[in-house]
């Protein structure tokens, strides 16, 4: 019941509203594909889609791998050390707090990073106000605020130790063991997390909204921010819903690609 009311009902409404000129006061009128046609000539949508692809790509190259390797390395430690490290790593920073402190670090005048650069005698950087640098700045916090994924740890603990012993007897080196024993075992989880991370990253909103507000010259303007602006600044709900459907189709393409290429089970 709850699932239908709050899961499917909005989606049905979305499908209807996307084809309407939605107005708060007057009854809605059906305008066919006009909401979608608007976006064909709209430069902002291309910019925002380019931005989210860039963001998702950077995120996956820089950030996505880190927890995997941290988790693998963490398994080498003694039990007591694992416990201490896990607690230290999971001293969480509420997400908004994390974003805000990073915004301060990047601050051109008072920020820590420029302070360090000034101290060491390097030229100061514009960080979030630099068109080219801004997107990387958005991704970097993820690199530092990472932790071992609980999910990876749980899966790693389930790998039987005999596999490693066998690999060792056959003379596998350290990295060979990671490559041939560990990674195939956690591949389904990696695939799942990759999918979730792509979906999540393509919908990014909080970080750019708070840190750059769309960034210098739209450099960090994401699709969801655009959607937010259309809907709640311009009050054009129909057009915004059309945009959300476009985003959905793009994400769906990724999901389908992912399902096609990551379907192997290591035990078979």
């Amino acid at each position, binding site marked *: 019941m709850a*699932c239908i009311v709050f899961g499917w009902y909005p989606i049905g409404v979305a499908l209807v509203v996307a084809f309407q000129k939605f107005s708060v006061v007057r009854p*809605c009128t059906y305008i066919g594909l006009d909401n979608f046609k608007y976006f064909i000539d709209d430069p902002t949508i291309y910019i925002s889609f380019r931005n989210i692809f860039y963001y998702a790509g950077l995120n996956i190259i820089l950030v996505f791998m880190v927890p995997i390797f941290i988790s693998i390395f963490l398994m080498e430690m003694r039990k007591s050390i694992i416990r201490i490290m896990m607690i230290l790593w999971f001293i969480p920073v509420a997400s908004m707090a994390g974003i805000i402190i990073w915004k301060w670090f990047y601050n051109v005048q008072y920020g820590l990073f420029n302070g360090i650069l000034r101290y060491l005698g390097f030229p100061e950087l514009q960080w979030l106000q630099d068109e080219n640098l801004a997107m990387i700045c958005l991704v970097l916090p993820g690199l530092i605020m990472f932790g071992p994924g609980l999910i990876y740890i749980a899966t790693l603990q389930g790998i039987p130790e005999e596999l490693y012993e066998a690999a060792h007897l056959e003379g596998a080196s350290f990295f060979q063991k990671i490559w041939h024993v560990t990674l195939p075992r956690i591949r389904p989880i990696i695939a799942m997390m990759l999918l979730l991370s792509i979906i999540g990253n393509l919908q990014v909103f909080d970080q750019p909204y708070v840190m750059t507000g769309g960034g210098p010259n739209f450099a960090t303007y994401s699709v*969801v921010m655009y959607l937010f602006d259309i809907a709640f600044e311009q009050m054009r709900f129909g057009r915004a819903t059309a945009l*959300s459907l476009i985003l959905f189709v793009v994400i769906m393409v990724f999901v389908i690609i992912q399902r096609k290429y990551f379907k192997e089970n290591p035990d078979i």
Partner: protein
Amino acid sequence: MPLIPKVGRKKISMRFLMGTITAVLWLGVALHLFPVWWMFTTSIKPSYEILKFPPTLWPAHPSLAAYRLFFYLSAGGWDVLQYPIKIYMKNSGIITAGIMLIQIPITALMAYALSKLYSPRWTRLLFLICIGTMLIPMQVSLIPRYLIMRHFPFPTRHIPNIPFTDIPFPHYNFLNSYWAVILPSIYSPFNLLLFKGFFDTVPPELINAARLDGASELGIFRRIILPMSKPVFAVVSYFTFSSAWNMFMWPLIVIQKNKLYPLSVMLYKFQNILQSQQVVPAEPETRRLLESGMSYNGLMAISIIESIPVFIMFVLLREQLMTGIKLRGFK
């Protein structure tokens, strides 16, 4: 410790490898802790010390002024600073508690029914219906949800009459209330997957035996399933808690009253005030506040306050979390 065999540990190369790994891990911990440490020390620095460079690792004159100012803020402030921070704390608390108290039982019972009570054919259909929403990104339903919340359960202002009468169907505007935030998240397909994955592992003999003994279905759930599934409940409550606590975009949309903002939105607004204050002179009330020592230390104080509950939650559920994550629903 599977990668490095126990036998060869004494060899130099192995020791080197081990040392490198340990160093990398501790470096990671240090990097991770640095912002937290920075947040904490800044929050207890007096304001003249905050922008000093090189920064002090421990404040020369620690003071709790930033915290005090927030708990006893009197009326007459501006924008989000009108209210003391405990108001926002309470908002966040109510929203999070509401989501947890409603969502977890609903999702758990749904998962249990799906896993044990229906015949396989129905299970498959219902499961697809339930999980289907997970594939569709939350942003697609963002605007419809907003519209629905405005005239629940109708998306438009045009509300049909009850047939054969002139009375319109009952509807309710949930915007600007806690319910607007709580209601859309009372069902979570992700948690349903977690629960179902766990309930599927419960042997059916156990349940059948209890049925023979005359236990009711709810009784079975409460007496047999609940005690068994502590870890999965821990995992789900941790995820639910942190996502509800960190929710930003949705409250920003549906709540327009300063008084009802959760902490995350409040933090954002406060940060905006600080930023704009550098460019244009703010209102006298705000300036008074800022001159009395409120700047980044205040911001950091709220950040710390916002982070504490998540940490407490993690410490409480840590043991369960470590053992509990078996994502069997992931396929």
